[in-house]
């Protein structure tokens, strides 16, 4: 395959960036998208140019580190697929592909396609956990959890923290990410106890990080590699309102 690429290049967080054009020949349709970038980087290196920095690690869709806006879509044209699981057979011969970093005020660009998602860590730090220290746990079967509840908690907990939900949202909202964690923990009897304080602290932190509000376009769910449901946002809002009322 022959393909043409337009890629965002930015030296450092403070530098101005711009789109640069590249072409690649002999792309194998069975290559993964990131292997295509490896190929381009090898070509740049042979010409003595700085390689394109991009986030990636496990390359099997679970670590959540990869994430590129491809032709304006988070993780590219396939639904519910991370960038690393995308293959070149998805693209047409001669196609022009545009690559940009995930963009949001709360996700500053570090270099080229690499971004800073530490805001997500700080949201979790604000309360995305159950306060149990090592050694304090009771026998695991002492608190039964219904099968449907455990499954629903899992669905929320499956979030990989990639940030596609933020990147695709016109408001750069982190409501799906935050809602998924709140939902995961509040559904379980172990996590329900702290739910009030948790939801307030996490939502406040989300706002403090500069993420926008949710306006229910549901674009996040459509692009989420893990198909996390927007119902978790509704549950977060419910829990938040409940906490506000109970506070008074």
């Amino acid at each position, binding site marked *: 395959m022959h393909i043409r690429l337009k890629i965002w290049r930015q030296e*450092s967080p403070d530098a101005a960036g711009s789109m640069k054009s590249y072409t690649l020949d002999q792309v*194998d349709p*069975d290559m*993964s998208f990131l*292997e295509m970038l*490896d*190929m381009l980087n*090898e070509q*740049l*290196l042979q010409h003595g140019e*700085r*390689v394109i*920095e991009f*986030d*990636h*690690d*496990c*390359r*099997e*869709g*679970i*670590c*959540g*580190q990869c994430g590129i806006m491809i032709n304006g879509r988070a993780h590219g044209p*396939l639904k519910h*697929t991370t960038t690393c*699981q995308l*293959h070149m*057979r998805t693209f047409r011969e001669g196609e022009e592909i545009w690559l940009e970093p995930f963009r949001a005020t709360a996700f500053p660009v570090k*270099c080229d396609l690499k971004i800073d*998602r530490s805001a*997500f*860590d700080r949201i*979790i*730090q604000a309360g995305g*956990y*159950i*306060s*149990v220290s*090592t*050694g*304090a*746990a*009771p*026998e*695991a*079967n002492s608190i*039964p*959890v*219904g*099968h449907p509840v455990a499954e629903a*908690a*899992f669905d929320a*907990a*499956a979030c*990989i*923290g990639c940030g596609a939900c933020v990147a695709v949202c016109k408001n750069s909202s982190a409501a799906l990410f935050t809602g998924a964690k709140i939902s*995961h*923990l509040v559904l379980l009897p*172990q996590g329900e106890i702290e739910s009030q304080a948790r939801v307030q602290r996490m939502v406040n932190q989300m706002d403090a990080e500069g993420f926008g509000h949710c306006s229910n376009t549901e674009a996040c769910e459509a692009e989420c590699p893990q198909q996390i449901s927007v119902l978790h946002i509704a549950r977060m809002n419910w829990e938040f309102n409940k906490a506000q009322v109970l506070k008074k």
Partner: protein
Amino acid sequence: MLESKIPGGPLEDKWSHYKAHAKLVNPANRKKLDVIVVGTGLAGSAIAASLGEMGYRVKSFCFQDTPRRAHSVAAQGGVNACKNYKNDGDGVFRMFYDTIKGGDFRAREANVYRLAECSASLIDQAVAQGVPFGREYGGYLNNRSFGGVQVSRTFYARGQTGQQLLLGAYQALMRQVNAGSVQLYARHEMLDLVTIDGKARGIIVRNMDTGAIERHGAHAVVLATGGFGKIYYLSTLAMGCNGSAIWRAHKRGAYMASPSWTQIHPTSLPQSGEYQSKLTLMSESLRNDGRIWVPKNKDESRVPNQVPEEERDYYLERRYPAFGNLSPRDIASRAAKERIDAGYGIGPLKNAVYLDFSKAIKDQGEEKIKEKYGNLFRMYEKITGVNAYQEPMRISPAAHFSMGGLWVDYELMTTIPGLYALGEANFADHGANRLGANSLLQACVDGYFIAPYTMANYLADEIKSGPIDIRHAAFAAAEEQVEKQLQLLMGIQGNLSTDYFHKTLGKILYDKCGLSRSGKGLEEAIREIADLREMFYQRLYIPGGYAMNTELEKAGRVADYLELGTLMCYDALTREESCGAHFRVEHQTPDGEALRNDRDFSFISAWQWEGADTPPKLHKEPLHFEFVTPAVRSYK
């Protein structure tokens, strides 16, 4: 002399006896003690969070952009624990025996017993953290069987058990960051260990975003940096997984144990081209219903579904009628390689075997198979474009797990006082072959339940040391050495990329220090790696500068791999027997099975660094079997 510090007494009392007599640190004194933890996978997050909860001052480092991405996240199948919830006869001793047998009697009895003993508490801890394990309709935890054992002791969270356990540990860690007891350093890579008067006292790290070199001091250093299977280039590991932290500690005096014992996983996707960067694992659970075969005809050109039954060789069922397609990983991988090497491999590169679900679909219906493995079939189709409900999967063995690692004693301390190695970074519990669902277990148990006790035993005497001063000459010297190495790599200005050297090294190791090894091949490999290393320092090219630079990061890791690869070959060369994943072609039974030699090789090989151009020095830690008798591992 290697002192394993195994407590005396009956097997079942050793750990409780140790805990009852270990030294403690007064809660008021803990905030005066600093601990560095490198790595934030299950072992690293668990120990950092646990020490933070106890009141120590902890610094946690990882190279990923957040701790939650450490490679524990990718483990699929499950975590073992002997809860005996199925009432099927499980217990600590049985789990201990399965594990030590699975490791081909090349692990310490006391360590393995402790692993089994602590397994039940881990499930309690994880459930309390909110890990959504699979449950039965009554609300109680479910189990499945795994990896050839005869009881159901594997807890699972769909096919994402590693992810869910890691998120539990990560959240515990974030709670401590919030509490101020743990300071987080993401995107920081450890480049050297600092020792003062023989004790581990800190590390030198590089901030991967800015390129800044930093010094960090502590009273103890924990390396929980995972395995180094990525040395083979093509592996099931993440691209960033590396051996640099443990290797640099090794060069500062920590011994490496059994570095050549690498688990090659039988059910990975095959390589499809030269560009390939990664071999994706397909869960071992597929072997519960899939049948593995190759055509009997070497030049078979028909598509698999048109090859008639009588012209298929179900070689695992043929060679191992008792365990068949569920034979342990080392056996299944080796049998696949035997067929592929003999010319019966399938696929365009003739490097794979079929994993066929047609019989299971016929017997159980497609819906049932979809319910069990739907996500895996979807993943397979995403990557290969092939619908595995209609034609067999193609699978192939791939480097997966390092049983070897830094040598540690019963306290998980390396040969450098104050330096600990946890999880896959150490060698301790899996012997020469790891059983499925035991890696998550070992990482968690090391981090939550063992190191918090054994480290206190060491730290109790460290209060009198006072704060560690990073202005000490040892820090300056280590920092200078790190900077010199970076300048050396950047200054070569040749014309070949780091990936070229990594791929070439990986190929040498796959061919000569992989699934089967020979004395002649290993000697060749040592020479070839030496030549490759020489070429690396003449022809490497790194574009860009000292700030954020992926190529510079990779070059440092590959420089270490080129030394570690040599050590692996020496390790495999000197072990003149076959055991577990280590198969020496000179040592096999007439029907091609591993031939262990307990009389001469019932010991752990611990290697001391002697310099890049000098062969390493071997130390032997004899293995004593007081409670079980090593037997021949048969799956026939």
